[in-house]
């Protein structure tokens, strides 16, 4: 989807000269696409409307930057606004200093309350060193109490014993007493799933709240929820006054727009994220990651982090200087290939890039993988030091020797040399410019931007990415991969290396 949004935005702004600022009509056209994208991610209509208004205010009149195209700019604004609306910094659970803290879990049937109760108990016991008691107030669903007892046992926490014939309110009262008497730090109350329109059950929830005065009342909600997320969250919030939301099943492939909907109508922070079936699969909620997910951008954050880790700054700067001077030999080419490998190789990078999933087959068919990079490395390593510095030495007998030495063919050696020459030519063209300008030109055109695959426009924070990737990888590998991709993959190599924006 993000690819769709990205290309749609590019379309909207296509032909738009770099004007001084984004006009209202530019932004309006872009926001229609943003709206559809969010709706497809299950963000509820009221939240979509509030969100697009906010973005409109922020985007209109923003001075366009030279290095960034308007569509990229809008995407960055959208991404940032999403993070902000999802809650900016993550908020953690409020555990009282005066025990026992009571945490009440409520939600629809099948949203994952009981599982979350078990996970939360384990987390509080192991991570926060709390003495935790679980109590099930679910007398409706068959074997719900049994389930919580088993989960409590697995988590190594206390579980309130069951007494037949008690009402949920009576159980809650008894649980609170037991937790006080036995000096528990935290009491987690799991409740029966209920529909927000069921007045009787919502009243019951209010009674439980009155009796136990919880420090946290969390709505446990499925991240796969559709438009109804607003109704549900609003109803629960009205009835009991939520303090936060626990989002479950984030390990699925749902885009999770429900989070934005619920956050919008309740104003409550999303505090927890369920990310798997194992009992330790409960994390703090990360707004930035979910924003990326709603936009289907892949884990660009992780990509940038990884890039920053892998690229040694000094080396990168040395390379940048050499490129700026138009000096670029096989040794530099090799450095770049190795940096790409450090970043998890081509496969690792691809996994983190947005919208790549469906292209993986094509990529495999085109034979572009880490093995190709390894072979390129082998070819360069089979050259003598002199050959690496001046490629002109490579006559046919030397090429035969290199092919034999690297276990490849002369054709492959030729191909690499050709790629290198294309690159060197480009470097020369850029040579006249200052270092920074050259770098920018490369990013805009040949663009490592998502490894020269025409994905640069999709990366939300271009400044970060250009700092992280630009320095280290420059155009070198981009060219290598770019030409490979452009040949094999029409869809991918949309922006051939070297084409300036």
């Amino acid at each position, binding site marked *: 989807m993000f690819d769709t949004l990205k290309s749609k935005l590019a379309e909207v702004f296509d032909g738009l000269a770099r004007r001084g600022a984004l006009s209202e009509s530019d932004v309006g056209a872009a926001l229609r696409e943003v709206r559809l994208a969010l709706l497809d991610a299950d963000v509820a209509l009221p939240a979509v409307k509030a969100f697009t208004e906010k973005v409109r205010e922020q985007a209109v009149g923003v001075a366009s930057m030279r290095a960034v195209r308007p569509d990229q700019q809008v995407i960055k604004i959208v991404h940032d606004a999403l993070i902000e609306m999802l809650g900016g910094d993550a908020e953690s659970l409020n555990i009282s200093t005066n025990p026992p803290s009571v945490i009440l879990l409520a939600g629809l049937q099948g949203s*994952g309350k009981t599982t979350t109760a078990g996970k939360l108990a384990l987390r509080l016991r192991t991570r926060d060193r709390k003495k935790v008691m679980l109590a099930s107030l679910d007398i409706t669903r068959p074997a719900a109490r049994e389930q919580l007892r088993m989960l409590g046992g697995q988590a190594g926490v206390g579980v309130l014993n069951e007494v037949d014939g008690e009402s949920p309110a009576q159980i809650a009262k008894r649980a609170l007493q037991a937790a006080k008497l036995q000096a528990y730090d935290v009491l987690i109350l799991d409740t029966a799933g209920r529909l927000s329109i069921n007045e009787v059950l919502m009243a019951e929830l209010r009674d439980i709240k009155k009796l136990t005065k919880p420090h946290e009342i969390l709505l446990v909600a499925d991240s796969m929820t559709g438009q109804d997320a607003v109704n549900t969250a609003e109803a629960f919030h009205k009835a009991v006054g939520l303090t936060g939301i626990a989002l479950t099943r984030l390990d699925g492939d749902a885009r999770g727009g429900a989070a934005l909907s619920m956050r919008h109508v309740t104003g409550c922070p999303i505090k927890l994220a369920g990310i798997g079936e194992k009992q330790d699969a409960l994390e703090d909620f990360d707004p930035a990651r979910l924003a990326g997910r709603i936009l289907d951008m892949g884990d660009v954050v992780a990509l940038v982090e990884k890039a920053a880790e892998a690229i040694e700054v000094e080396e990168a700067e040395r390379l940048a200087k050499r490129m700026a001077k138009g000096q670029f030999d096989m040794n530099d080419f090799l450095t770049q290939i190795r940096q790409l490998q450090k970043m998890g190789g081509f496969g690792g990078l691809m996994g983190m890039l947005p919208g790549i999933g469906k292209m993986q087959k094509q990529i495999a068919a085109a034979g572009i993988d880490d093995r190709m990079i390894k072979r390129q490395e082998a070819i360069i390593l089979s050259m003598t030091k002199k050959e690496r510095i001046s490629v002109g030495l490579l006559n046919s007998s030397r090429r035969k020797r290199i092919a034999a030495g690297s276990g490849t063919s002369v054709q492959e050696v030729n191909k690499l040399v050709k790629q290198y020459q294309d690159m060197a030519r480009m470097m020369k063209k850029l040579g006249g410019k200052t270092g920074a300008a050259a770098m920018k030109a490369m990013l805009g055109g040949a663009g490592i931007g998502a490894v020269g695959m025409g994905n640069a426009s999709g990366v939300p924070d271009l400044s970060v990415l250009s700092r992280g990737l630009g320095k280290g990888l420059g155009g070198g590998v981009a060219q290598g991969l770019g030409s490979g991709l452009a040949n094999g993959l029409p869809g991918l190599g949309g922006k051939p290396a070297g084409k300036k924006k």
Partner: protein
Amino acid sequence: MNWFKKLKDGLSKSTKKVSESLANLPSLSALIGKSKLDATSLEEVEDALIAADLGTASSIRLAAALKAHKFTGPVDTKSIALALAEGLETILEPVAKPLKIKAENRPHVVLLVGVNGSGKTTTAGKLAQNWHAQGKKVLLAAGDTFRAAAVEQLQIWGKRTGTSVIADTNGGDAAALAYRALAQAIEENADVLIIDTAGRLQNRSELMDELAKIIRVIRKLDKSAPHDSVIVLDGTVGQNALSQVKAFSAVADVSGLIVTKLDGSAKGGVVVALAEEFGLPVHAVGVGEEADDLQPFAADEFAKALAGVGVD
């Protein structure tokens, strides 16, 4: 209360929303008395459909069809709703097919699949109850060997409905259990075997492989099994339902769907998008926690409720 009334109640509780939102649209009320829809009001009809989880593509298509619709009388919210219901029914009618036991299958094997918390175990219990009440010999297989107390949950349903439940008390292999259950069902000459499975997210390939194994294994006893491979969908689910149906179909050859939890505020409009995309039969809808709250899917009623035509 007969089932029809119950379905109406369930649906009218849940799906009045579109008509409410239609009635509340300012541009629509201004339109009343005119004979054509303008662009703004079409967009608002589109919004109302999106709010019912039909998804953008289906909503845009339906709203566009409305534009072409010739209103015989003056346009008002009621005539718009009626025209919408008509369009929806056309889409839903072909997929409304109840789940039927075929007597030539001894037993008729029904496999229930779906993501976590969609209501598989509850649906298994309800199906067992309904067939049991029809005098069929029903066997339940507690194939959810993963979730804590899932087996106990199904056993309670078994007791309620007088159905025997085949289960391993201590975890174990779901495929082996399914095999054993089918063997027993054949031996006892049962009419139906309902196999409940563990909830699994469709992008977890290792869990989907387990599901494939269950099917592979029961086919060793009966090549035509499972005779119905039903995906159970949560009525509150959004557009991810499409991904669920696609992924489960690839592994379990899904033959139909059951949509649960339609007695709440969710409208289950994704069924329309699913019907357009996959055309798989919709067997039943769950409209409550009792055994007889599992009702056959009625296209006209659902379409009317979704479009907000008063269910009376």
